[in-house]
């Protein structure tokens, strides 16, 4: 008897393999040439464009859209990659609704921004499909830089350094590169193994060696790296996850990050087990990604329980709407109290005088699976680096408190924890490393 949505417990195959494959198709299907031309025609080519200001990597958006409109998508892609070498992934995963597209003046005009994200994907897909690599390396400098972490910030940093003529070695603790692009973000945002394809394409610049299975504190030390390299960049992300402080025990309690990672690495989504009644604790992107994917796998009920109100939720309105459109229920003002055989008990909360209080009311939800998505923490940062607010303290150019060591991405202070922000930080650190290695300030 095969499983279905009502099968109790945590099991795989709640939906047919076809249905699951369909559910995990592209969230935003790519634009074809005609659609891209129509979408590009809507751009006003604003002066000092607000979208460009809103982009953490400052892509010249009006220019690349005009290049699409005039039939030169590859030139458009070059404009994008000049600023953001992971422009392909960012086109898929950026919360554009809170970045470039939120700033688009078309919102004022007709409440509908130019589809910047999808246009960016059209341009980058076009160039990447051509094969080869669009950038060439400058003459070799003989300088060697170590980059720790093959996530967005590390890759952006390594690429920029390689382009400047430096030799780069990337170290990553896992067996695959890409960082959260590979292990973290929702599968339907980058289907088709895009993270690996992009990684291979990026490395096409040359001059970058990737050494997998090497982790700081586990066969790798900052001291050694500093000795063997002219500079070190740390893009180690947030490897730790917060624990859930609740009473009781529940067999189905797991970290959402780990569950998503396993899902991303599964060869067939139909093999991924999911609960009948799933409760996700948290209010950020990880909570949304876990909840939506649980639903797409066929969970009968999926509830996100968030302890604060809707306005306080870190996940954007767009993401909240996406979740509810897929059948996820979002329960605001519900804080976890205890877990047990009956499921999970949540305390109703309210915000009074700026403080979150429990109202005394509780509710209990049935739950076969409880995924905690209540934040990640810095883990495994080398000693000796100044830490600020739980992150490696860096200045505007990514310099840490230790000379010769830069950091960027989620592990470092500054900016939101987004792929695009990590790319900007990695890129800018590379520029500063280059200046520093070539006799500048």
């Amino acid at each position: 008897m095969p499983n279905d949505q009502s099968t109790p417990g945590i099991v795989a195959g709640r939906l047919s393999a076809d249905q699951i494959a369909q559910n995990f198709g592209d969230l935003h299907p790519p634009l074809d040439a005609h659609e891209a031309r129509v979408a590009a025609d809507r751009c006003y080519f604003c002066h000092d464009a607000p979208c460009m200001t809103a982009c953490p990597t400052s892509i010249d958006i009006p220019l690349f859209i005009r290049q699409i409109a005039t039939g030169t998508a590859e030139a458009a892609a070059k404009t994008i990659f000049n600023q953001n070498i992971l422009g392909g992934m960012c086109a898929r995963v950026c919360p554009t609704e809170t970045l470039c597209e939120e700033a688009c003046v078309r919102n004022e005009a007709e409440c509908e921004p130019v589809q910047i994200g999808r246009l960016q994907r059209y341009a980058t897909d076009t160039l990447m499909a051509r094969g080869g690599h669009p950038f060439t390396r400058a003459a070799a400098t003989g300088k060697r830089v170590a980059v720790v972490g093959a996530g967005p910030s590390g890759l952006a940093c390594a690429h920029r350094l390689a382009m400047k003529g430096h030799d780069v070695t990337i170290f990553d603790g896992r067996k695959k590169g890409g960082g959260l692009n590979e292990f973290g973000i929702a599968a339907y945002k980058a289907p088709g193994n895009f993270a690996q394809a992009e990684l291979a394409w990026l490395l096409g610049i040359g001059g970058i060696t990737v050494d997998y299975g090497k982790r700081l504190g586990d066969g790798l030390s900052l001291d050694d790296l500093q000795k063997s390299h002219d500079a070190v960049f740390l893009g180690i992300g947030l490897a730790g996850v917060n624990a859930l402080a609740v009473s009781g025990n529940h067999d189905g309690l797991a970290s959402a990050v780990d569950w998503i990672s396993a899902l991303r690495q599964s060869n067939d989504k139909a093999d991924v087990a999911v609960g009948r009644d799933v409760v996700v604790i948290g209010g950020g992107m990880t909570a949304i990604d876990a909840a939506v994917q649980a639903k797409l796998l066929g969970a009968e009920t999926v509830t996100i329980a968030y302890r604060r109100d809707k306005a306080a939720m870190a996940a954007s309105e767009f993401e909240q709407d996406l979740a509810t459109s897929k059948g996820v229920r979002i329960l605001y003002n519900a804080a976890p109290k205890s877990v047990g055989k009956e499921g999970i008990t949540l305390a109703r909360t309210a915000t009074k005088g700026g403080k979150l209080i429990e109202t005394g009311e509780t509710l209990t939800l049935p739950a076969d699976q409880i995924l905690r998505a209540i934040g990640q923490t810095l883990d495994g940062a080398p000693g000796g680096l100044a830490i600020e607010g739980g992150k490696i303290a860096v200045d505007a150019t990514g310099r840490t408190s230790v000379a010769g060591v830069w950091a960027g991405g989620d592990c470092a202070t500054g900016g939101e924890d987004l792929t695009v922000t990590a790319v900007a930080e990695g890129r800018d650190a590379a520029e500063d490393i280059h200046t520093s290695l070539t006799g500048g300030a």
Partner: protein
Amino acid sequence: MADLRSNFIGIKSPNPFWLASAPPTDKEYNVRRAYEAGWGGVVWKTLGEAGPPVVNVSGPRYGAIWGADRRLLGLNNIELITDRPLEVNLREIKQVKRDYPDRALVVSLMVPCEEEPWKRILKAVEETEADGVELNFGCPHGMAERGMGSAVGQVPEYIEMVTRWVKQNSRMPCIVKLTPNITNILYPAEAAKRGGADAVSLINTINSITSVNLDTFTPEPTIDGLGAHGGYCGPAVKPIALNMVAEIARSATTAGLPISGIGGITTWRDAAEFMALGAGNVQVCTAAMTYGFKVVQEMISGLSEFMDNHGLTSVDEIVGRAVPKVKDWKDLNLNFVTKAVIDEDLCIKCGRCYAACEDTSHQAIEMGEDRTFRVKDDECVACNLCVNVCPIENCITMKELPLGEVDPRTGRKVEPYANWTTHPNNTAANAG
């Protein structure tokens, strides 16, 4: 619903919207569909002499340019006059006119510049009981190489001569269709008038190459690797046509000569503009070729609503209303001062006005920290470029400074009307 009935040089039609002589009016089937769709009249596609019909290319006949979202803005064609036998056309014309007696049916003609061929074809057309003839002195491609079409329209003496033959050899009303491929539209219009034309129609198409294929380096449309210039029409040519119509309507030598307005008319508004500048009716082609015959329904309802809103009871009340306002530059009031005003509530903060003014004009718009845009009255020369580039209608408007108010740019008070003819800087005017 306003009364749209039109009487153009004695030719009556239920509305002033005619289809121009062109591919849409080449045969009975199309013309019947046009009448059924509501077109007031049709100018049948140009007939040539009896005998072997002309031959068209069998590659592309049209080229186009497009605006955003591939909206067709300009169309170019290298099609010749009708390539169907004369007798077939004549038979169809007679039958259609009989079946649609209330609609206008004018026949376009083009035969060599000799009196006998004109006599022959006029006699044949008269037998169809069509309402009139239009002399095609306009087509700029193909036929012009054979001494017809615009080759005639570019020589006023020929226009006058042929028009006179037509009037002498026919009782039918005669419309002379003019080519815009000349330096001054008044010369051919005056010649038509001298020849006895009942009206002129304009504009015919403009010599053009729409684009160049950058893979093959051939002009478009391309016929087997080669291209030839065609005739350009559609919305893009409307401003050129409006000016030519207005020139004829306001010139002392041609004033009062009835005009059938042609050139990029796509909506009721375009039609009303042509009529306001002196056109007694209008002819449409590209709009029908782009959207089908149904577009006339919008033209009818739109013109009707416009007339009702303005208390107009006859289309003739629109005709020529704007002509007295068309003047030479020297007649314009040099003391008139306006300033651009940006409505911050409507502004979407795109900054196009700023870029246009700062880069290409008078640095008269300032951009605030929060992307608020404000006009600097002491720099604004009222050029209107900001209005033209603003994507939001009525967001930027031009405000008139009243008499006596000081223009912050010049420091001078606004004075009453005075034009170039009396301006102190006009050395020519002050020489005497």
